[in-house]
């Protein structure tokens, strides 16, 4: 099926199978920040934004995304760099596989609430798994980022 996708502000015309997921389409188009993890909506590493809302791209049909606004980490580099620096400074980057999904989820939270509490951050990140189990360090980094931003 022919589909028009608006990815990070640019239009793409693609041909997709009826059961093709955005995860695969986006990777084929070169958006390699979108990682394949569990492929069953359980881990959060494939999270992207569709119309500003964070969703698992492994379960989002490409045909359903026709003419909708898709954002991947490639489209939010500046903001992502700023946050990731604090996470890295805590040694919490480790293998890095979960980072794009974590950052996309966090930035969706910041779209709703610029100054969340750490409780709100943890609630938002509950569906994002880290195979290095670096959660404590990630939380320390995010807490510091929020502190500095507030000051």
């Amino acid at each position, binding site marked *: *099926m022919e589909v028009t996708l608006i990815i990070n502000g640019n239009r793409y015309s693609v041909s997709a*199978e*009826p*059961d093709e*997921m955005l995860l695969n389409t986006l990777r084929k188009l070169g958006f390699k920040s979108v990682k394949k993890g569990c492929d*069953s*909506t*359980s881990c*959060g590493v494939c*999270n992207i934004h569709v119309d500003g*809302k*964070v*969703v*698992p791209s*492994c*379960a*989002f*049909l490409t*045909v*359903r995304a*026709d003419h909708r606004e898709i954002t991947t980490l490639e489209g939010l580099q500046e903001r992502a760099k700023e946050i990731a620096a604090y996470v890295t400074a805590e040694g919490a980057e480790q293998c890095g596989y979960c980072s794009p999904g974590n950052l996309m*989820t966090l930035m*969706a*939270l910041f779209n709703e609430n610029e100054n969340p509490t750490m409780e709100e951050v943890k*609630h*938002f*990140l*509950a*569906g*994002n798994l880290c195979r290095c189990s670096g959660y404590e360090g990630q939380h320390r980094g995010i807490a510091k980022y929020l502190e500095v931003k507030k000051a």
Partner: protein
Amino acid sequence: MKIKEYSNPRNIKDAYEQLISREKATIMGGGVFLKLQRRTLPFVIDLSNLGLTGIETTPTGFTIGAMVTLRQIETDASIPDGLRECVKQIAGVAVRNMATVGGSVMGRYPFSDVLTALVALNATLAFYKKGEVPISEFLDQGLEKADILLSISVPKVKHSFFQTYKKVYTDFSLVNLSIAKADTYTVSMGATPKHAKAITLESIDDVRAVLDQFDFQTDRRASAAYRRALAKALLEDAVEEAKKWKSL
């Protein structure tokens, strides 16, 4: 999940006609559970373009569109506590942005937290052809003919409460409980591991008498005795909560 053919109708009439005319048509709500199934679907009807995405307050309560996401429920202040609370531990935010209330209802999932809350609230389902069906009747009997769920109506209650036991945050419930108070108490228990059932009572203070009305069974997640013990703890929490309602 494999899909042979996909359709994204723009109005409900077309969607219904496709549903009854196409062999083995499957309706897609959020698409999360469909994605996890190892099935080949010959024809999928996506409801995402029908505008069933609003939450409306009515004089007698409120109406939730079938395609309202669990995240919308979580963030809408007009939704009663019992329903808003129940979605908070369902997977992560990203999944809740996709999963729909209609999908939770039509799946008749026995482990569902949403169904336990809706049963306690005495919700009524509105179908395109069949019209209104009480949620408990639908859970017990299902539908005799294919139909499309349009919305879920929930009458006003004074108070509502939801509590669940999960091994970890975002997991399935081992047992869940919801209570709504209008003039009487409606107590609903789900994941027993059967689907949610409700009873109506004047008082919930006698925890043992309430527990005796529910049938707990054993499956691979938990034994009947363990479920009953968890349910007792959840009910005791509910009794404490209900004391606050009385003093309000």
